[in-house]
């Protein structure tokens, strides 16, 4: 567990004047008995868990444990064979991607899925798509309401740019950015949606220590500043244990543990399934 030290924030050692001002609410999203199969292969087997409003929830597990599949279920890209998803006061057998997006579920991808032909700014602006309503006619003229709407959303996106400290990259085509910054821009695109829930698929994969620290800081800030619920898949155990409030552990598509980082760390099944083999 040497990695855990690299991200020790040291906040607990700080003097008075600090407080966890977040309010963790009731469950905002939950899944019940989800089963996902591809052909004959079971990717997720009867998994249930809930996510509380305002918390950072991690899903961990060895490679192929079904973590990404779980995120894909949550935002509607995969349709489960059985089980249900409870969200926004309703219950669904499967999520619809558009419904997820329009009800405030945003996500990033494990392999960066930016729009490579566009600039950083335009990529972030795509995150505002659902907030922009002006019809085709006004769009043609780029005048009056359409321009007003465009500029208002630009102003919003600029706040995200400021937040993520990417002002210098505004006009750069994202394809030219280094990997770590692409990840940051992708987070920015998700943030531009004003999400209630942010799904992060290995946000720190392939990053160096410094980039990981930056990204962790951004995730914590998003969670604290905007009260955004974060659901996170991450390989780096140190990061997960530092960041998250509660952790779900998957192994071969099944849930083997669920609890606070400390509880999970102490769980024998988890140690056997994951922690034991992670030190390669």
């Amino acid at each position, binding site marked *: 567990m040497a990695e855990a030290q690299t991200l020790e924030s040291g906040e607990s050692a700080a003097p008075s004047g600090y407080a966890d001002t977040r309010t963790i609410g009731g469950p905002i999203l939950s899944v019940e008995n989800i089963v996902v199969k*591809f052909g004959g292969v079971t990717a997720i087997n009867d998994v249930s868990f809930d996510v509380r409003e305002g918390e950072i929830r991690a899903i961990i597990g060895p490679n192929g444990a079904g973590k990404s599949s779980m995120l894909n279920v949550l935002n509607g890209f995969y349709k489960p064979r059985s089980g249900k998803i409870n969200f926004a006061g309703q219950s669904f057998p499967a999520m619809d991607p558009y419904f997820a997006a329009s009800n405030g579920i945003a996500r990033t*991808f494990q392999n960066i899925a930016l729009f490579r032909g566009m600039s950083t700014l335009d990529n972030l602006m795509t995150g505002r798509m659902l907030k922009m309503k002006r019809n085709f006619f006004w769009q043609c003229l780029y005048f009056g309401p359409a321009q007003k709407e465009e500029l208002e959303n630009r102003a919003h996106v600029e706040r995200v740019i400021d937040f993520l400290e990417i002002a210098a990259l505004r006009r750069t085509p994202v394809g030219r950015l280094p990997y770590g910054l692409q990840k940051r821009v992708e987070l920015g695109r998700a943030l531009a949606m004003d999400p209630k829930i942010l799904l992060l698929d290995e946000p720190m994969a392939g990053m160096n220590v410094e980039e990981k620290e930056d990204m962790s800081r951004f995730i914590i800030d998003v969670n604290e500043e905007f009260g955004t619920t974060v659901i996170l898949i991450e390989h780096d155990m140190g990061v997960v244990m530092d960041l998250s409030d509660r952790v779900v552990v998957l192994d071969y598509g099944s849930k083997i543990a669920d609890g606070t980082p400390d509880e999970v760390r102490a769980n024998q099944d988890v140690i056997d399934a994951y922690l034991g083999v992670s030190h390669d």
Partner: protein
Amino acid sequence: MEFLHALLIQPFADMVMEPAFFIETLVKGLMAGVLYSLVALGFVLIFKASGVFNFAQGVMALFAALTLTGLMELLEPSGMPKALIVILAIAATIVVMILLALIIERLVLRPLVNQELIILFMATLGLSYVLEGAGDLLWGSDVKVLDIGLPTDVWDINGVFIEQLDVTAAIAAGSLVAVLAVFFTKTRIGRALRAVADDHQAALSVGISLQQIWVIVWSVAGIVALVAGIMWGSKSGVQFSLSLIALKALPVLILGGFTSIPGAIIGGLIIGVGEKIVEVFWYSVHGGAVENWFAFMLALVFLMFRPQGLFGDKIIERV
């Protein structure tokens, strides 16, 4: 009412009333289908081995046929026996097609390696223009008669007329498929080619470079194009429209699946038969020339329901 009758009743009545004519149309359709299949086969070969959708396959057939007729015209004054001329010309054309494959690999494919497939597709569009221009420039653009001595008689089997050329084409196509099947399953290179379709690394570990594979595949596709060109050319002359007719191989592929050789054959037959029968028996409904678009519309409808084709692999998207 009259229209519905013409659409729904009359054609089937005609089929039943004139079985010989129906069978003849059917056979004609099958034979056209065989030729579509031959062009489609070339597509499949290249697609399977490199993922490249070779739009120029039809023009390659035209180019091969033009080269063949051109060479035969050149050899004719020599006074050699016809059979020798044909054999020499065919051999030379095969050499030309292999050279062409080498050139294409070097000048088009190699610089575009690792590019998106859609870029490669558009490059083959450009290639088809180059080949068309080159063929016309070298051999002239008039319609040419291609006669390599294939039988042109018509058999009359109980009132059903069947052209021998069509039968020859079917036999040629059949043997080509057989040869290819042997090539792909029994030879080392063939097996490597199959491997490359699944995994480029795997093919490299067999000890064949990607470049070599491309050259081989394009050469084989060139030879297939030559066979298709001979058949089409013998039937209706060598002319530019050949490359357009060859476009019909595209819907054939959609029906049959881009990666399946049997699919190419069966798709070709379905389209050949389908368009002939619709053309002939529904003439009063549409007024003719539906062959121009029937295949494409069929493919379009088909795509809506089964995009991977009859025999193609299922396309799975992963996030």
